[in-house]
C-alpha cells in the first residue's frame, strides 16, 4: 500500500470514528498515524475536523441531536489529545492565537460554550476557559492577563444578555482591538450589532451548528 493511500485510510478511520462516536476507532487510527510518521496537523484537519463537519450536517438535518453531537465531540477530543502534542509548527503560519471563553454570570448552560471551545482547540488556539456563571470582571481581567486576541461570551438566556452588553463595553474600553464573539440562544444579529460585538451565533441549535461550521471554515484557511 502506498504511503498516501495509507494516510487517507487513517484519515477516513478518524473521520468515521468521529461521526459514529467511536472513540476506540479514533484513538487507534490517531496512534497509527503518529507511529507511521504522518503529519498530525493534517490528521486533525482532514480526519477529526472533517468528521465533525459531517456531524454538523447530520445535526442540521435533524438526524443527530445534542446528545449525539456531544458524543462525537468526545471522540474528536480522544483523537485531538493524541495528535495535538505532535503538531509540528515549523514552516506553518504562527499559532492562531489565544482566546478567553466563558458563559456570563446568571447563566449555567455551557454546552454551546464547550463546542465553541472545541472549535478553537481544533484550530490550534490556546483557550482560557473560565467556565459558566462568570462575573464580567473575570473576562476583562483574564483578557488583560493573557493578552488574548478573542473573547467569546456565551449566554443561553435572555436574562443574561445585559451582562454581555456590559462585558463588551468594559472589554472594548480596556482594549479596543480585542475581538468579541457572542453565542447563545437569545442573541440576535441585531443585538450583537447594538452591543458592539464582532461575531455571534443565533440560538441554541445554531450555537452547535455554527461552532461546527467554524471548524469547517478554519479547515479551509
Amino acid at each position: 500500500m502506498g504511503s498516501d493511500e495509507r494516510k487517507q485510510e487513517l484519515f477516513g478511520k478518524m473521520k468515521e470514528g468521529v461521526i459514529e462516536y467511536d472513540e476506540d476507532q479514533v484513538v487507534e487510527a490517531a496512534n497509527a498515524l503518529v507511529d507511521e510518521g504522518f503529519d498530525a496537523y493534517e490528521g486533525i484537519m482532514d480526519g477529526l475536523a472533517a468528521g465533525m463537519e459531517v456531524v454538523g450536517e447530520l445535526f442540521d438535518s435533524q438526524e443527530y441531536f445534542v446528545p449525539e453531537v456531544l458524543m462525537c465531540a468526545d471522540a474528536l477530543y480522544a483523537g485531538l489529545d493524541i495528535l495535538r502534542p505532535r503538531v509540528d509548527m515549523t514552516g506553518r503560519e504562527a499559532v492562531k492565537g489565544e482566546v478567553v471563553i466563558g458563559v456570563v454570570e446568571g447563566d449555567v448552560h455551557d454546552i454551546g460554550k464547550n463546542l465553541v471551545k472545541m472549535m478553537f482547540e481544533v484550530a490550534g488556539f490556546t483557550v482560557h476557559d473560565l467556565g459558566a456563571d462568570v462575573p464580567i470582571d473575570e473576562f476583562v481581567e483574564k483578557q488583560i492577563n493573557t493578552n488574548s486576541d478573542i473573547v467569546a461570551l456565551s449566554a443561553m438566556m435572555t436574562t443574561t444578555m445585559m451582562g454581555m452588553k456590559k462585558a463588551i463595553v468594559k472589554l472594548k474600553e480596556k482594549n479596543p482591538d480585542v475581538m468579541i464573539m457572542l453565542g447563545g440562544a437569545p442573541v440576535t444579529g441585531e443585538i450583537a450589532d447594538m452591543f458592539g460585538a464582532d461575531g455571534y451565533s443565533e440560538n441554541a441549535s445554531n450555537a452547535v451548528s455554527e461552532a461546527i461550521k467554524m471548524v469547517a471554515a478554519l479547515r479551509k484557511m
Partner: protein
Amino acid sequence: MTMTHKERVLKTIKGEPVDKMPAFTGFGAVLVEGLEKYGLRFAHVHLDADEMAKAAAATSELAGLEAIVVPFDMGVEAEALGATLNTYPHSEDLLYPTLRDKFVHTADDINLPADIANAGRVPLVTEAIKKLKEQYGEEYAVASWVLGPFTLAGQVMDLNELLKMSFKEPEKANAILDKLSDMIIGVGKAYIAAGADYLSLREMGATSDVLSPRAYKKQIKGFSQRIVEELKATGVPIVYHICGDTNMIIEDMAELGADAVSVDQKNDLKASREKLGDEVVLLGNINPWDVFTQGSKEDVQREVRASVEAGADAVWPGCDIWPTTSTANIKTWVETSHELTPRRNGA
C-alpha cells in the same frame, strides 16, 4: 353573564365556552413596575412569601393579567433536594436565580425529602399561594408550576453528563428521572393543596432542539404522563409545556392527558393546530422578549391576533415575561384578547 377572570381562565384551560378570550400565563410574569409599586428587589422576592405574592399580584393589579402565578425561579425543586440557590443579591442587573451544585450522578445521590411540602422553599411558595388565594382568589386564578423531571435533572446534574447518559445508559438515567418524578408530584400536590387553581408542568429542556423525537417518546413521555395523571387526579387542570420547536412531538404532548398544551414561539402554531385538530386546547405562542418587552403596542396587537388566527385558544407567552416589560404592553395583550372571539364562544 360576565365571568370573573378566574372562571374565564379555568374554563379556557378545560376547553369550555367563555364570554371573552382571557389573557393569562402559566409562567412567571413579575414586572419591574410591579416591584416598584411595592418597593421590592427582584433578588429578594424569591425568598419571602409575602414579597413573592405581592410581586406576582402586582401584574394583575397594574395591567389586568387574569391569573397570578408563583414562583418565578426554576430552583424550588432542586433546592428542596439539596442544591444551593444563588439569587445574585449583589448584582445590579436582573438575574434569575440559578443553582450551584451539580450533585447528582446516579439515582442514589437523590434523597427525597420525607416531607416534600416542607422541604426547601416549597412551604414558602405554598404560603404565597395561600396569601394570593385569600386576597385575590375570588376574582383571579392563582396558579403555580413545576419542572418536568428531565429539566429538573438538568438543574441538579451536569447537562453534558445527563445528555450522554440518556443516550448511552438509558436505564441509569431512567432511575434518576423516576425519582425526580416522585419529587415533582410531591411539590405539585403541595401547591394544589395550598389552593393553586391550575398547574403547569414545564418540561422545557426536553425540546426537539436538544433531544430527538425518538428520545422524547422513549425516555421523557412516560414520566411526563405519570406526573400529569397523578396531578390531574387531584381535580386541578394541568397545562403541559415544552420549549422550542415541538411540532415533531406535538401529538405525543397532547396524548399525555393534560387539559391544555402550551408551545413557544419557535413552533409553527398553525401547523400544531392542524396536527392536533380542533379539540385540544392549545396555548401560545408569543415571543415574550421580542414582542412584550421590545415591541410596540401595534406589535403586541398584531402578534396576539396572529396567535389566535393560527389556532390558539388563548395567547400565552412562550416563556416567563421579562421583568422590564411595560405594564402598557401587558394591558394591550389583555385588551386585544378581550376583543377577539374565543374559539369556544360562550358569550
